[in-house]
């Protein structure tokens, strides 16, 4: 890079005090952090606090509320639909995360083999993650159609395994598992590509040593792959759990919480009560109720990260 002293000198046409000011470190740091911290404090930290406050009020759309203490939480405590949304969210997060990680790890292990056109295959695998979730959710909505579902068509008319078409979204349990399947479908690429990056950092010499010692494929996986993958697995797991737990788009697009509110997640229920229902205070209370779960996941993530630096002999920087 040809940067000479004269080219820097050319910029000296500005007033000298301005140049001095911008070279004064505290001022420069302040100016550099201002846009990012300003936006985050105004549109992230402040609303987070405002949300907690709103949950203690009876605010409605178009009417500023008054402090009502724990009233919102008390009414939620006796609200059957709220508790159903909590159990739905936990079930959804648990089953979808297990499914995503089992299948994603399997796909990552497959992709870690020698495969022709590997980068092309890897590019294709990521597509479900790139496309807007709502739009692929609409495709799933159509796949789950009661009359024209292509899955039912294959099972009934092509393979003859069933006599009737499946009502995917009509009954609560079918609808829940249909949503979980769509979520797993969308989550596999992210998990697989992240874990593949982790797999590629594992030194081949470990596998060679294990093979010389006569380790089976399962032993190599259990004693080498999994422990070496654990740090990155923990981070991806945290991200995945947080974003599955607070998922909104898939459920809103496919069932809107139906049939009869049986597939609401906490996020969709909060939206339902707050925006179309107008009860901002109650919606905020439902959203705030998600925070303890998220904090638990974040603390887990922090310790996983710290642990990882310690394992690699690095320092926190």
């Amino acid at each position, binding site marked *: *890079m040809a*940067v000479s*002293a004269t*080219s*820097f000198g050319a*910029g000296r046409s500005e007033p000298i005090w301005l140049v001095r000011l911008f070279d004064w*470190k505290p001022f*420069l*740091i302040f100016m*550099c952090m*201002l*846009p*990012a*911290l300003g*936006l*985050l404090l105004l*549109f992230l930290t402040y609303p*987070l606090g405002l*949300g907690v406050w709103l949950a203690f009020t009876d605010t409605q759309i178009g009417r500023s509320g008054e402090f009502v203490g724990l009233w919102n939480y008390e009414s939620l405590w006796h609200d059957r639909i709220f508790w159903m949304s909590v159990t739905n969210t936990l079930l959804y997060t648990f089953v979808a995360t297990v499914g995503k990680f089992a299948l994603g790890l399997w*796909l990552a292990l497959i992709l870690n083999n*020698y*495969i022709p056109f590997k*980068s092309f295959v890897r590019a*294709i695998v990521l*597509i479900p993650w*790139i*496309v*807007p*979730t*709502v*739009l*692929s959710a*609409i*495709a*799933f909505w*159509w*796949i789950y*159609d009661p009359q024209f579902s*292509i899955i039912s068509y294959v099972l009934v008319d092509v393979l003859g395994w069933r006599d009737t078409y499946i009502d995917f979204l009509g009954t609560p349990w079918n609808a829940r598992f249909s949503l979980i399947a769509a979520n797993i479908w969308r989550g596999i690429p992210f998990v697989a*590509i*992240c874990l593949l*990056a982790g797999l*590629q950092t*594992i030194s*081949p010499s470990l*596998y*060679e040593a294990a*093979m010389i010692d006569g380790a089976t*494929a399962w032993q190599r996986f259990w004693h080498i792959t999994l422990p070496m993958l654990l740090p990155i697995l923990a981070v991806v797991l945290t*991200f995945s759990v947080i974003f599955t737990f*607070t*998922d*909104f788009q898939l459920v809103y697009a496919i069932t809107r919480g139906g049939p009869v509110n049986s597939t609401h997640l906490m996020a969709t229920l*909060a*939206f339902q009560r*707050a925006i179309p229902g107008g009860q901002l205070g109650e919606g905020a209370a439902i*959203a*705030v109720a998600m925070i303890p779960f*998220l904090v638990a996941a*974040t603390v887990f993530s922090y310790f996983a990260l710290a642990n990882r630096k310690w394992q690699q002999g690095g320092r926190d920087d």
Partner: protein
Amino acid sequence: MTDAAVARRILDDDHPPAPTTPERTGVIAWESLPRRLVTVYLPLACFLIVLLFPFYWMAITAVKSNEELYDYKNFNPFWVSSPTLANINKLLFETDYPRWLTVTMTVAVVSTLLSIFASVLAAYAIQRLKFKGSPYVGLAIYLAYLVPPSILFIPLATMVFQLGIFDSPLALILTYPTFLIPFCTWLLIGYFKSIPYELEECALIDGATRLQILWRITLPLAVPGLISAGIFAFTLSWNEFIYALAFIQSAENKTVPVAILTQLVEGDVYHWGSLMAGALLGSIPVAIFYSFFVEYYVSSLTGAVKE
């Protein structure tokens, strides 16, 4: 070299060949072709079919005529016998689709530029101008990424209303950076770390100011990182849903994902042909964008997780 040849060479060798590249780590020395077929290619094919089928189904539905769409007895549903552009035509010329596309594009581009600007400065300050407490600011920004939009949209809706920008694209441009800045800053901190600090020291000795160093030395070297952050931010804002759903009310200001879901569904009758055409056309811009920058996506996705 074909796989059969690879397998034969491996079988013929007395000593298992040392894997030459990291990509070969998974190859087990005594694997034969039939075994690889069952353990690698067959599951891989299943995965690819399942992952891609919804898009195929979306595309094939979008070009079907109505009589073909709802008649599985006389037509093979997996294929289209007489493709029609009627659905796409209807979407492009009888709805506000071009308008939604412009709004989405504007919001995505402006919020991306805004976030990149803020993130570059913040990442530079945290990584290069090391100050007391900079690790904590970095950690705080990382934690900000873990705050999901689903718990912020209700208080943000009231704020947007009070600021008088409800139902305007400006509401989205100002709120999207809340999830873009943490991600981009985190990515750029990692990228700046990889640029040798000696280059900056040389410039400092030559009498450059800090801002000149950032503008003329660090930024040109960080261009790949900027591209990664930029395309990622663009994709995230294109795909954003809950803010766009909550803050925009009038049909002409909606973004593509929201508009397809709310404007094309009329009552209880779903026009699956035009819905699928909408989903397809809404996905194509990101898909094209993605195909140009695949490697950047993979590196930023994995880089952000590893950081």
